[in-house]
């Protein structure tokens, strides 16, 4: 029904043309529902306005075809034929979207007067009915717009758009000034009227939950360019573009547990005209991204993507990993057929009770233990885990026990730059600088007195930060953090985690975060993997796993650790475990601990 071919919209600004929409092509079928998301200023409204020919100053390139007729052409004529008769719009709320000197009734009445043949009386009834239908009391009809609240104005705008029964309804943030309840009410209304009138829908919103509820297809725009397009549900739950994922991660209705982090950088740091516009902020940009603009490619049926690297990269992939340890009597299967995958910029939390094989997995992934069976591949073909840990921009692991991972006898400075020293990277000057900046990143002092301190003179928290700084000097692409907070008091733990998360967000490295603390995992992880007795029993997005665990044992874990604690928030976590475990489970709990002790011995 609606077709955009290579549509570009350029505003001739004083300081050079501003391309608000850049080569966008898409189709919308009759009755289709398209969502458009993107950061502020990415061109959503410009795109919407252009569909009705309302960008006065802008130049439009490409074509807008509606029902076989090209709308944008030499004159306004084709647009005039569709405005409000066929395409209506709920404008992004602003104080002057409605005319300040005409009352609400007059402004609705005049569209009916222009487009429909009704008597004055009929029109009056119709206007009032529509206002009531969108939840605005009749009494407000004869008030001037400035007397209405933002939400009321949005309702009036909606009534105005609906009253001529359009074929295509464009909604530009129709719910931004409504509370949650009115929002769902209004969305329900738009939904039910759609069932009635069968209009197609284009919905622009920052509220992803609204987008998911209302649309079937989704377009993400960045700097006016199409980044990703596909079925809404798939796109929101399995984004392939780093930008789409960034939007989701910053959205409170999707990241209900994880701390919210916006994408660093912003407001379009003048993207190179010939490269990927998102490159300055992309966590996985490659050398190509700066100079070659990614083409929109169809990935699968109905899904397309513009990324030189084919979307979010998989940095690490372990398939069918096995690892067993020989005991004095028999063996213990620490890893049994584990499949694991880590995407760029992602935080994967590995959960599980003590002894379930989490640390073994970490060791295998970082090449400290060879795996018995299975395949481990990295982002570069031919890279193995050992060489990955021995290069900058590679893989680093930080251990649970800072006392063993950092030497007592080395000074702080030496400890931090040791990995670089071993590599022989750069000059000793630059190594020192790298070490100092890593120390600053983890918020440790870099005064000479501190740099000369020896490991044994540091507190646990400081040592943990030190080991983190040591890993960060290598500018890792993947950081494996194995229970790094378990030895810290709550306050230092919180501080360390915030530091780590901030660094992750700013530098965009991927992280495997191993913990048995479900609360922490929930705050940190994008994805969760649950281990039990050496097997991975569940993997999925953090929200899904915590809200709706599939595996009975995950459910048990979640229920016992999170579900019940809600009622007794005063109890410490550990105590809860003891209190709440059934006797048999407590037994296994100790058994596993025991096993772990045994495993350590060889």
């Amino acid at each position, binding site marked *: 029904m609606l077709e955009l071919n290579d549509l570009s919209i350029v505003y001739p600004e004083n300081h050079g043309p501003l391309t608000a929409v850049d080569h966008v092509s898409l189709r919308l079928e009759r009755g289709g529902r398209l969502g458009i998301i993107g950061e502020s200023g990415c061109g959503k409204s410009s795109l919407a306005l252009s569909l009705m020919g309302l960008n*006065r100053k802008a130049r439009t390139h490409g074509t807008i075809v509606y029902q076989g007729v090209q709308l944008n052409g030499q004159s306004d004529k084709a647009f005039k034929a569709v*405005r409000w*008769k066929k395409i*209506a719009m709920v*404008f992004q709320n602003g104080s002057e*979207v409605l*005319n*300040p*000197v005409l009352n609400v009734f007059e402004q609705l009445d005049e569209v009916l007067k222009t487009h429909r043949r009704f008597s004055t009386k009929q029109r009056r009834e119709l206007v009032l009915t529509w206002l009531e239908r969108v939840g605005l009391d009749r009494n407000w009809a004869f008030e*001037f717009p400035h007397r209405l609240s933002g939400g009321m104005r949005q309702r009036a705008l909606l009534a105005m758009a609906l009253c001529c029964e359009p074929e295509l309804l464009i909604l530009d943030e129709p719910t931004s000034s409504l509370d949650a309840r009115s929002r769902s009410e209004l969305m329900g209304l738009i939904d039910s009227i759609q069932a009635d009138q069968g209009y197609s829908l284009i919905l622009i919103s920052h509220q992803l939950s609204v987008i998911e509820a209302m649309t079937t297809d989704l377009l993400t725009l960045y700097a006016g360019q199409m980044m990703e397009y596909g079925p809404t549900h798939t796109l929101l739950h399995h984004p392939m573009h780093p930008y789409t994922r960034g939007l989701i991660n910053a959205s409170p209705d999707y990241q209900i547990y994880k701390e919210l982090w916006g994408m660093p950088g912003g407001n379009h740091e003048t993207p190179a005209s010939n490269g990927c516009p998102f490159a300055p902020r992309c966590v996985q940009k490659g050398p190509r991204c700066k100079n070659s603009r990614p083409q929109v490619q169809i990935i699968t049926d109905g899904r397309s993507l513009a990324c030189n690297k084919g979307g979010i990269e998989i940095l690490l992939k372990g398939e069918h990993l096995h690892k067993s340890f020989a005991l004095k009597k028999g063996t213990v299967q620490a890893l049994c057929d584990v499949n694991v995958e880590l995407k760029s910029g992602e935080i994967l939390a590995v959960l599980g009770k003590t002894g379930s094989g989490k640390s073994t997995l970490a060791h295998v992934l970082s090449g400290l233990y060879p795996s018995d069976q299975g395949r481990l591949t990295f982002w570069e073909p031919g890279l193995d885990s050992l060489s990955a840990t021995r290069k900058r921009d590679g893989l680093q692991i930080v251990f649970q026990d800072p006392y063993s991972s950092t030497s007592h006898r080395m000074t702080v400075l030496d400890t931090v730059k040791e990995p670089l020293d071993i590599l022989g990277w750069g000059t000793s000057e630059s190594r020192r600088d790298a070490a100092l900046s890593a120390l600053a990143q983890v918020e440790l002092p870099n005064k000479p007195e501190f740099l000369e301190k020896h490991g044994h003179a540091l507190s646990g928290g400081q040592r943990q930060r030190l080991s983190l700084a040591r890993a960060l000097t290598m500018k890792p692409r993947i950081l494996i953090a194995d229970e790094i907070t378990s030895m810290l008091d709550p306050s230092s733990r919180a501080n360390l985690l915030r530091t780590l998360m901030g660094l992750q967000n700013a530098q965009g490295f991927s992280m495997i975060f191993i913990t048995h603390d479900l609360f922490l995992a929930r705050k940190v992880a994008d994805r969760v993997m649950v281990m039990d007795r050496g097997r991975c029993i569940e993997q999925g997005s953090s929200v899904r796993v915590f809200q709706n665990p599939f595996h009975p044992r995950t459910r048990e874990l979640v229920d016992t650790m999170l579900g019940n604690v809600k009622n007794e928030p005063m109890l410490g976590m550990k105590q809860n475990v003891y209190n709440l475990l059934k006797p048999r489970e407590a037994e296994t709990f100790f058994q596993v601990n025991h096993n772990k002790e045994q495993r350590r011995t060889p």
Partner: protein
Amino acid sequence: MKKLGRLTEYVITVLIILSINFFLPRMMPGDPFLFLSGDQGEQISAYSDEQIRQYKACYGLDQPIFRSYLSYLADLFRGRLGQSLYFNESVGHIVLRRLPWTVFLVCGAILFSTVLGTALGSLSAFYRNRLLDNVLYGFMMFFSEIPAFLIGLFFLFVFAASLGLFPLSGALTSFSPDRSVVQVLKDIIHHAVLPVAALSLTRLGGMYLLVRNIMISIIPKAYMRTARAKGLSRYRIFIRHGLRNALLPLTTRIFMSLGTLVGGAVLVENVFAYPGLGLMISQAVMVHDYPLIQGIFLVITLLVLSANLMSEVLYRVLDPRVKDGEG
């Protein structure tokens, strides 16, 4: 609260004007009675002592200044502006007789300059930076620089003297009682065409610019975009949405510019010998009829002032937002 404040301001302004009007002649050098019949330089009193005493009593000059001020105010409130020395008639009567012509002239000029200025200004705004706008703009700039009396003289020469299309002077052909009302009206309009046109033309440039600027600021407004989106007719968009919003700043500015318009009217009346207050003023000045000059000035200032007051009232009526802003 605020309204009251504005009103007091006006009352104070009026009082100040009245006082200036009272004190000004008293501060002039020399004795006004010497000037009554004397030309510049020669100060010959044409009045006998008896007469002067009489006049002094009439103007309260024989009383302490404060008391005479009070009686001046009291007279004013009774509508007494004093006695013209030259015409030997009450100033109030003279003003009342002349005022309608001036008002007629000014109103006609407002009407024409507003209608034409609005039309041209809006046209220019809609075709901004295109040929039509550029031509109009240049044209208007040129005209707004020419003083009213020059335009008046030009009209007089071309349309009245050379072409003989319009009468050379006056507002009415001499009285002939047997004419019908329609004929009289026709005659009045016939006389008024040139003065009104001249006066309008001097206002036109300002109006045009004003409307053009207002419209240019209104066109990009979101509600204008909404109006276009709604597929309304051009006419409706322009009148109901554009002009309706322009009306606010426009009316206030029209009322505020009344002062200059009256000034223009004085000149134009003199050029066309149009029997309004403006012509009267120059006559009064010529014969040194101070009471008359004072009276006319007072009436004109009060008129302009009340026009200003009206513009504020209108603003409140026209803009729904102002009412609420005052809470």
